[in-house]
C-alpha cells in the first residue's frame, strides 16, 4: 500500500473532483510543515518558541511565567509563547489538529500515552537528530523517567516530572477497624486482608483503585505487572503475556472485593478524582495515588479531616515497584528552531523544584531529587525513596491497548465474566491490535 501522493489522488478516477477540492486546501497528508512564525531562521535572529503544558495554569501560573521570563532574560532575542491545555485528554486532540494544520508548538508536554504514536510516525524529533551526545544528557535524568521516553532505542523526550503511586490512607478508619495506623499494609495480601477487616468493622470500603480514566490508565497495568508480576508483553513484544494464573488469581481478588464491598465500587468506572473524593468523604480507607493528591485533599477537606490522612510507601507487588506516570517534553518536527526548543525543554525541566514545592512530584532531573526539600516531610520522602517503573508498552497503539484492558477489567469486576475469561479476551484483543502494526 503506497502512500497517496497528491498527484495520484488527482488521477484517481471518479474521485478527481473530491480529491481536487481537498488537496487544494492541503488537508490530505497530515504534516504540511508550518508556515507561521515568519522570519525565524534557526540559529540567528529573534526566535519565538511556542510551549505547551498540560493543566498547570490554574495554581502554577506564577511559577511558569517566572521560569519563562528568566529564560528570556538569559537568552536575549528568544521569546516564549506559553499555552496551557486544561486537560490531559484534550492535549492529543489539540495537538493532532495543530499538526494537520501545520501550526505546531515547538515544545510540547506529552505523556507516555501519546508519545509512542508521535515517535513512530516521525511527528516528533528523536533527540539524536538534534544533538550529537544524547548519552551525556541522559545521564542528568532519572533513569526510569528517561527510559520512558526511549522508544526502539532512540530517546524522544526530556523528562519533566514523574509521579509514583504511594499508599494514602485514613488513620481513623484504620483505628476503628483495629488496625495499627503505624503499620500500613506492605504487600497486596496485607492490603486485601486489611480491606476486608475495615469493611467488616466500619462498613466503609477498604480501598479504591480506579480504572476508568485516561489519566490513570496505569492502574490496570499496575494490577497485572506491578501487583501480580505478570509481564504485559512477550519478550519480542508481539503478543500479550499477561493472562498468567497469578494475574487471574489477583484479578479474582478484585472481583470478589467489589462484589463483597471491601473494594469500593467507584473503582469500576471512576477516575482518579472520583477515587480521591471517596477517600475525602471517609467512605474508603486507602487509595494508591501520587502524593500530589495531598495538595488536593488539603484544599478540599477541613483541617481536622486532613489530619487523618497519612502517606506510606506503595505496597510491594510481585513485580516490584508500582507503575509510575510522567510528563515529558517532546519537540515536534514542524518546529522551526528545534535546537533552541531542546535547549528550552532542558532548561524548563531544571526548574521543576519550584513546582515540586507546590505539589509533591518527582523531578526529572536527578540532582534536583537530592534537594533537602525532599527529605522534609513523609510525602516528599516517599517520592524520592520509591523505585520508578513503567510497565506499559511503548507501542503506538498503547491507548487502544489500554482501552481494551479496561473494558475487560470492568467486565470482570462487575461479574459479567470470570477473571480468567476477561484476561484471555483482553489478551486476544491485544494480539489483534499488536498484529495490526499501527
Amino acid at each position: 500500500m503506497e502512500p497517496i501522493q497528491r498527484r495520484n489522488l488527482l488521477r484517481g478516477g471518479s474521485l478527481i473532483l473530491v480529491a481536487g477540492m481537498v488537496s487544494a486546501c492541503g488537508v490530505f497528508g497530515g504534516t504540511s510543515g508550518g508556515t507561521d512564525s515568519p522570519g525565524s531562521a534557526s540559529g540567528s535572529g529573534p526566535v519565538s518558541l511556542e510551549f505547551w503544558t498540560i493543566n498547570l495554569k490554574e495554581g502554577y501560573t506564577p511559577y511558569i511565567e517566572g521560569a519563562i521570563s528568566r529564560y528570556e532574560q538569559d537568552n536575549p532575542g528568544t521569546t516564549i509563547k506559553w499555552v496551557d491545555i486544561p486537560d490531559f485528554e484534550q492535549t492529543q486532540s489539540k495537538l493532532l489538529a495543530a499538526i494537520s494544520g501545520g501550526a505546531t508548538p515547538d515544545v510540547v508536554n506529552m505523556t507516555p500515552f501519546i508519545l509512542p504514536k508521535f515517535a513512530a510516525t516521525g511527528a516528533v524529533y528523536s533527540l539524536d537528530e538534534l544533538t550529537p551526545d544524547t548519552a551525556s544528557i541522559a545521564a542528568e535524568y532519572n533513569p526510569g523517567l528517561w527510559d520512558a521516553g526511549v522508544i526502539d532505542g532512540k530517546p524522544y523526550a526530556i523528562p519533566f516530572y514523574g509521579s509514583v503511586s504511594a499508599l494514602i490512607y485514613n488513620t481513623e478508619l484504620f483505628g476503628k477497624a483495629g488496625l495499627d495506623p503505624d503499620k500500613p499494609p506492605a504487600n497486596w495480601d496485607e492490603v486485601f486482608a486489611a480491606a476486608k477487616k475495615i469493611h467488616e468493622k466500619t462498613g466503609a470500603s477498604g480501598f479504591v483503585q480506579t480504572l476508568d480514566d485516561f489519566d490513570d490508565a496505569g492502574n490496570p497495568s499496575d494490577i497485572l505487572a506491578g501487583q501480580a508480576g505478570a509481564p504485559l508483553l512477550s519478550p519480542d513484544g508481539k503478543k500479550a503475556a499477561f493472562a498468567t494464573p497469578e494475574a487471574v488469581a489477583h484479578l479474582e481478588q478484585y472481583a470478589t472485593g467489589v462484589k463483597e464491598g471491601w473494594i469500593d465500587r467507584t473503582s469500576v468506572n471512576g477516575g482518579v478524582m472520583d477515587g480521591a473524593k471517596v477517600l475525602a468523604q471517609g467512605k474508603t480507607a486507602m487509595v494508591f495515588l501520587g502524593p500530589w493528591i495531598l495538595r488536593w485533599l488539603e484544599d478540599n477537606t477541613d483541617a481536622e479531616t486532613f489530619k487523618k490522612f497519612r502517606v506510606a510507601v506503595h505496597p510491594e507487588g510481585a513485580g516490584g515497584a508500582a507503575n509510575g506516570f510522567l510528563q515529558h517534553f517532546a519537540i515536534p518536527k514542524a518546529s522551526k528552531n528545534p535546537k533552541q526548543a531542546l535547549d528550552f525543554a532542558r532548561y524548563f525541566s531544571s526548574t521543576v523544584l519550584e513546582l515540586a514545592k507546590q505539589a509533591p512530584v518527582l523531578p526529572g532531573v536527578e540532582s534536583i531529587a537530592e534537594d533537602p526539600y525532599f527529605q522534609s516531610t513523609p510525602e516528599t520522602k516517599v517520592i524520592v525513596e520509591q523505585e520508578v517503573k513503567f510497565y506499559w508498552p511503548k507501542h503506538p497503539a498503547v491507548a487502544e491497548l489500554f482501552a481494551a484492558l479496561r473494558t475487560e477489567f470492568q467486565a470482570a469486576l462487575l461479574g459479567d465474566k470470570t477473571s480468567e475469561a476477561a484476561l484471555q479476551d483482553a489478551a486476544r484483543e491485544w494480539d489483534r491490535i499488536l498484529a495490526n502494526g499501527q
Partner: protein
Amino acid sequence: MRAAPRGAFGPISRTVVVAILGIASVVAVGPMLWLVSTSFKDRGDVFAVPPEFIPADPTLDNYAYVWGQADVQQYFVNSLLVSAGTVLLNVSAAALLGFALGRFRFRGRRLLFLLGLSTMVIPFPAIMLPLFVATKEMGLTDNLLGIIIPTAAINLWLSVYILREAFGGLPDELEEAAVIDGCSPARLLFRVMLPLVKAPLATSAILVFTLTWSEFLWPLVIMRDHAKFTISVGLQYFMSTLTSNWHHIAAIAVIASLPVVVIFLVLQRYFFSDVLAGSTKG
C-alpha cells in the same frame, strides 16, 4: 391578548398539576441549587456526609478567588462576544434562507434543504480535524471569528429549519398584498414578515446562544492564546484532575450560567407574546 383565561382549572386538578410541576421544578433546579449552595461553602464542608443543603458557614471566598483569577473576566467577555456574534451570524443567515425556503419555489431548493439537513446529523468529532485545517487556512486561529463562524455554521440548520417553518406558515395574503403593492421580496422580508416571526427568531437565538455558550471542544482546539479562551474552556482549568476543587468549580459555574439566565429572562417575553396579534394591528 394574552392567552390563558383564569380559572381554566378546577380546584382539584389545579392542586394536582401544581404538585406535579412543583416536583418537576425541584428536579430541574436541584442540581443548580446544589451548585449555588456549594459555591458558598467552605472547603471542608463540600464533602460533608450527609450533604449539607444550606452551608453552615457561608462564605464569598470562592467567588473572590475565581473572579480574581485575571483570566476569568477575559473568558467571560470572550464568551459573551462569541455567543452574541454567533447568534447574529447564524440567525441572519438562517432568516434569509428560511425566508427563501419558506416563500419561494426555486430550482434546487429540495436538494439544498436535504444537504442542510444532513449537516445537522454529522457528529462533530467526525469533522473536527478537517474543520480545523479549513479554519486555519482562513487565518482564523487565535481570532474569535474562528469560533464564531464555524459554530454559526454547524448550528445553522437548526435555525433554518425553525425559520423556514415560521415563514412558510405566514398567510399568503400578506405576500399577495405585497406583490400587488409592487413590493420587492427584500421589502416584504424586512418590512412585513420579519416582525411577524419574532417568536421563532427568539427561539433560534436562544437555542444557538445556549449551544455556543456550552461549546467546549472546538474553542479549545482552535484557540491557542489563553486570552482568547471562552468560559467553557476556562472552566476546565478548574475541573481538571489536579485542580478540581468543588467550591471553586461551583462558583465559576454560577458565574458562567448567570448571563444566560439574564438573557433568557430578557428574551422570554418574545416567546410568549401573541405573534399574529401583532400582525393584525398594521
